[in-house]
């Protein structure tokens, strides 16, 4: 009993950090509708800046002053990011900004590495709160008690700011209808900047205040990212009390998980989130998000047409060029081209559900990795020949997507995205922790293609046929009645339902289909590498595909392919440098700012301006 009480206290103390950071994320998302992936980076910066400040500011006063100062500093950094990176892309299609924030993550990672080095930093103990207190005989750090005591004040302060002050009224109004707020004479741009300052400052504060417990390291940005999204979603978007309850729930459960069921820790919060969302689709204290409430940003998508003779010719020429790679290029080039094609198919499958279906999935890696693991498991345990394994990969991934899709389909928008992320994470931790079956962290090795395809050249041709065939098939389905029904469900579910289309079923099947296509990519991947590791199921893998689809241009399939090829090639080229992240991050940010409709969309616009591409009437 005593132990349990002490554990609850530990959980509450951990919840403090989580709440501080998550409430900032919630504020930023609520008002600006930006899914800010860089929020974890702000948290990390808060920790490092706080650490540096504590080195120079002594004593108890210095400690707490450093914490505050770190918060303010990160707030200012948030403002700089908002003004320089996000302002130019507010008008871009929805969610496009998340690509920009992803670029910011990479930049901050390398900047932190340059400034503070790769070594983990041990946080200083808080002066005056160093010891422990015995509560019912169990030791409880004094600092934990301080954190537990502080959090309600922060919650109250924020709550007061949001519900009682004029600024709060504006923020809440902007959350509900930012256009209206703009029409009433509020300078939206500065309201956004202000909210970004506050939100980032909360993250910085969270990072600095947890220093005595956790220190600072270069992985903490990604480590907290998933948790804070989970907290915001469980609590309900935009609800501060909800975020607090969720933070406490997650932290306390986590402490118990560590003690009694260690293997559950990686996945516990995602299970909690999945359960909460299945019962309460908008989080514990969230309100229902009315679809289309916030309006479509950007101009409407253009009609699509089956390829004309010119486009067909271009595709044939490109294919011919690709077939020549092994003949004239090195085997290294063949391997690189194989990687690129596989990644392009993966990205194209995400585009199908994201672009045509309007369903943003944050967990598409589940089907890429899922397909790969299905193939690997079949080969390892059932001695399945490669040909059959390559067939089973999409079937397995499709089935997986069929099941996950069925659960996720009842949600929409960001909640849908988060639930897909939760399931992907679930799968990842399953693979990661089930050592005996999946090899866990060590992955599965020795999964090579059949003899007749053993060389990199012949495997390249297989990839070319299946990969490019898969992409062309995706394109064809987009032009089929099913693809049209999917777009109809996205464009106006009201009209679609009123004309006999079961929109949820169409989207569900499309989700399963996209999963199966990602499974083909996964199957090809595992045989090209001869091995598979849990990293292929990670959030980062899902984000790769997401970034690529947006970067290339979400409105066209070619965008996903062009984006996929560019990123994969770029990564291959620059990961040889020590500070490649900052390079890639800056390139991403520059592309985002220069080409707000993605590479393909913007290229087409430029082409129209110059008169190279026929312009459509009335659209400019």
């Amino acid at each position, binding site marked *: 009993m005593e132990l349990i009480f002490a554990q609850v206290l530990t959980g509450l103390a951990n919840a403090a950090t989580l709440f501080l950071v998550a409430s900032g994320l919630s504020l930023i998302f609520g008002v600006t509708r930006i899914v800010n992936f860089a929020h974890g980076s702000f948290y990390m910066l808060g920790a490092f800046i706080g650490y540096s400040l504590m080195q120079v500011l002594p004593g108890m006063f210095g400690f707490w002053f450093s914490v505050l100062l770190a918060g303010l500093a990160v707030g200012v950094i948030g403002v700089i990011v908002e003004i320089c990176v996000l302002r130019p892309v507010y008008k871009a299609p929805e969610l496009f900004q998340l690509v920009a924030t992803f670029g910011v993550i990479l930049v901050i990672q390398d900047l932190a590495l340059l400034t503070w080095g790769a070594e983990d930093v041990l946080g200083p103990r808080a002066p005056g709160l160093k010891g422990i207190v015995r509560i019912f005989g169990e030791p409880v750090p004094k600092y934990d008690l301080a954190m537990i005591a502080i959090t309600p004040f922060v919650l109250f302060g924020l709550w007061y700011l949001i519900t009682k002050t004029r600024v709060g009224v504006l923020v809440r109004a902007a959350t509900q209808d930012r256009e209206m707020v703009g029409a009433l004479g509020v300078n939206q741009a500065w309201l956004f900047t202000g909210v970004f300052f506050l939100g980032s400052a909360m993250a910085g504060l969270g990072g600095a205040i947890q220093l005595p417990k956790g220190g600072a390291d270069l992985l903490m940005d990604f480590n907290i990212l998933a948790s804070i999204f989970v907290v915001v979603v469980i609590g309900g978007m935009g609800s501060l009390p909800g975020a607090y309850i969720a933070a406490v729930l997650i932290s306390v459960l986590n402490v118990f998980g560590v003690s009694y069921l260690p293997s559950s820790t990686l996945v516990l919060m995602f299970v909690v989130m999945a359960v909460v969302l299945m019962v309460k689709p908008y989080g514990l204290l969230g309100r229902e998000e009315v679809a289309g409430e916030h309006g479509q940003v950007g101009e409407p998508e253009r*009609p699509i047409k089956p390829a004309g003779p010119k486009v067909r010719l271009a595709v044939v020429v490109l294919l011919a060029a690709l077939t020549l790679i092994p003949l004239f290029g090195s085997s290294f080039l063949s391997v690189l081209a194989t990687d690129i094609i596989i990644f392009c198919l993966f990205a194209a499958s995400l585009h199908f559900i994201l672009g045509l279906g309007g369903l943003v999935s944050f967990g598409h890696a589940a089907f890429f990795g899922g397909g790969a693991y299905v193939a690997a498991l079949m080969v390892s345990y059932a001695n399945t020949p490669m040909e059959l394994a390559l067939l089973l990969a999409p079937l397995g991934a499709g089935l997986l997507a069929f099941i996950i899709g069925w659960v996720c389909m009842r949600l929409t928008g960001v909640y849908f995205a988060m639930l897909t992320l939760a399931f992907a994470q679930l799968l990842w931790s399953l693979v990661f922790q089930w050592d005996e079956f999946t090899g866990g962290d060590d992955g599965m090795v020795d999964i090579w293609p059949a003899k007749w395809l053993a060389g990199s050249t012949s495997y390249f041709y297989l990839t070319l046929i299946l990969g490019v065939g898969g992409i062309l098939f995706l394109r064809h389905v987009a032009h089929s009645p099913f693809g049209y029904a999917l777009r109809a469900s996205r464009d*106006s579910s009201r*009209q679609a339902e009123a004309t006999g289309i079961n929109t949820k079923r169409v989207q569900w099947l499309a989700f399963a289909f996209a999963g199966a296509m990602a499974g083909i990519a996964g199957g090809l991947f595992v045989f090209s590498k001869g091995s598979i590791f849990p990293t292929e199921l990670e959030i980062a893998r899902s984000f790769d595909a997401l970034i690529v689809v947006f970067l290339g241009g979400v409105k066209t399939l070619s965008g996903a392919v062009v984006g996929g090829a560019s990123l994969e090639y770029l990564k291959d080229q620059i990961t040889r440098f020590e500070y490649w992240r900052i390079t890639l991050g800056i390139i991403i940010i520059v592309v985002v700012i220069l080409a707000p409709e993605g590479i393909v969309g913007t290229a087409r616009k430029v082409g129209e301006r110059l008169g190279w591409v026929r312009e459509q*009437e009335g*659209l400019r």
Partner: protein
Amino acid sequence: MTEPDAAVLDVRNLSKSFGGIRAVQDVNFSVKKGELLAMIGPNGAGKTTCFNMLMGQLPRTAGEVHLDGENITGLEPRTIWRKGVGRTFQITATYPSMTVIENVQMALMSHHKRIYSILPFATKLYHDEAMALLELVGMPEQAERHCAILAYGDLKRLELAIALGNGPKLLLMDEPTAGMAPTERTKLMQLTADIVREKNISVLFTEHDMDVVFAHAHRVMVLNRGELIANGSVNDIRNDSKVQEVYLGGGNLFSDDEHQHA
């Protein structure tokens, strides 16, 4: 069940409460074959609530809806559509990413149960039928235009073409002329009336513009505070004292000389 003059739609004791507010109370009416029936009433009278219940978009509190003698109460909107009820929306709902004709083709593909096929090119399916429908609503030359750039009146006509895609026996039109210029209103309703006559369809529509109602409706129902207070021919309604009270607090709103064309 289809004797001459039989009811296509039969609504019995339809009611809806939102909490303690009784938005629609005990509404009874029927729509006869080939009839243009108008439902009018002040804002908040319960017209749209009625419509949404008829189309299955809103669960009812009590009552039954029969289509051609078949009980369709509580069915999903898409199922009701398959049974032959088309609808247009107060705020237009079309597919902005498609061309005009593709919008109509989509409805036709759904009607012919082809939405799950992945082999044919969608643009090649039911092209002629879609074109015929566009000709019916008078916009064949706009077939290849991008739906997102249509003028509002054209969107309304397009919606009508979409609603006709399943060859409906009944059309439900929620404020078909809202937001249109007066001349456009008359044109759209004249078009609807012509189509109704030609295809022998019944129409139930709500409307605020009395000119439109009196010019085109065969029969008029008046809803006030959720209750049906009058139901009769255009002339009956015009002279009904209860209706006049609802609309003008007693004054004579609909004087004959102002509406010669009625």
